[in-house]
């Protein structure tokens, strides 16, 4: 019986770890609706996922940004973006990076929060100009079972 129990425990460990990892990159948010958005295909190291939750105090507080499960302020976000952007910058410092930023902003987040993130992306040291806005299909347009 020992091998069987070993395999079973390995399965349990796999599901525990996989479950945890799947939650780190993507935060539960109410994404904006878009009818004509294209389907997202996961990509590798050349994309950073920025989660932007609705700020406290009814939108007047600082934006709540998280990357890879860590909550960051704007200075930390800029540093994180610069590190990731430098890794895929073909022509050296100050030139545009190949990094794409996927912005997952809550539909009720004020646009100023997104503007802060966009400013961080477009700052000269970061130079990330490719943006993607995450969206969902409106309920009426969603195929059955999704």
């Amino acid at each position, binding site marked *: 019986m020992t091998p069987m129990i070993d395999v079973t425990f390995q*399965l349990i460990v796999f599901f525990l770890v996989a479950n945890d990892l799947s939650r780190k990159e993507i935060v539960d948010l109410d994404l904006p609706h*878009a*009818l*004509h958005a294209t389907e997202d295909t996961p990509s590798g190291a050349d994309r950073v996922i920025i989660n932007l939750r609705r700020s406290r105090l009814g939108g007047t507080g600082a934006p709540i940004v998280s990357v890879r499960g860590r909550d960051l302020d704007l200075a930390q976000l800029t540093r994180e973006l610069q590190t990731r952007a430098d890794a895929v910058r073909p022509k050296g410092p100050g030139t545009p990076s190949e990094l794409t930023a996927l912005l997952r902003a809550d539909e009720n*987040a*004020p646009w100023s929060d997104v503007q802060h993130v*966009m400013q961080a992306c477009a700052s000269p040291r970061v130079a990330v100009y490719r943006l993607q*806005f*995450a969206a969902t299909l409106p309920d009426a347009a969603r195929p059955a079972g999704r």
Partner: protein
Amino acid sequence: MSDENEPVHLNMTPMIDVVFQLIVFFIVSMKFKSLDMKIEAELPKECGMVPGPARPPDPKVDVRLRRAGRDSPTEIRVGSLSLGNAADESAWIRLKTCLDVAKARAADSSVRLIGEVDAAPAVATADVVHALDVLHAAEFSDVRFTGTPLLR
């Protein structure tokens, strides 16, 4: 006396039952989160001063989203023309019509038309993404953002 010398056998069945119950629980409770859709956009690049002859500005359609306060709805404008409130679906249809007309005019003169989104800071992100969605529906491939830089 002979019973004491026999090896003890552990009954593994209840343990395996529990372990399988755990596996089933994790499989059922696990929810792989996946993104549904995305809209592509590009930020303006700061290129500095470029020597050379002045180029006429590219023709563009200004989509402006304005909001007076947190409780007021977002107003949609094309240039200075007000199309109504974002809560009213017909305002978005009017926006689509305006974009289609501008696109048709640009096609006649064979110029590349730019869609420019200028949203006020208080506007909800949902409304801006909706505007981007309408621009994509009207086949604007070049969409840019404008606005006043925010202070941190």
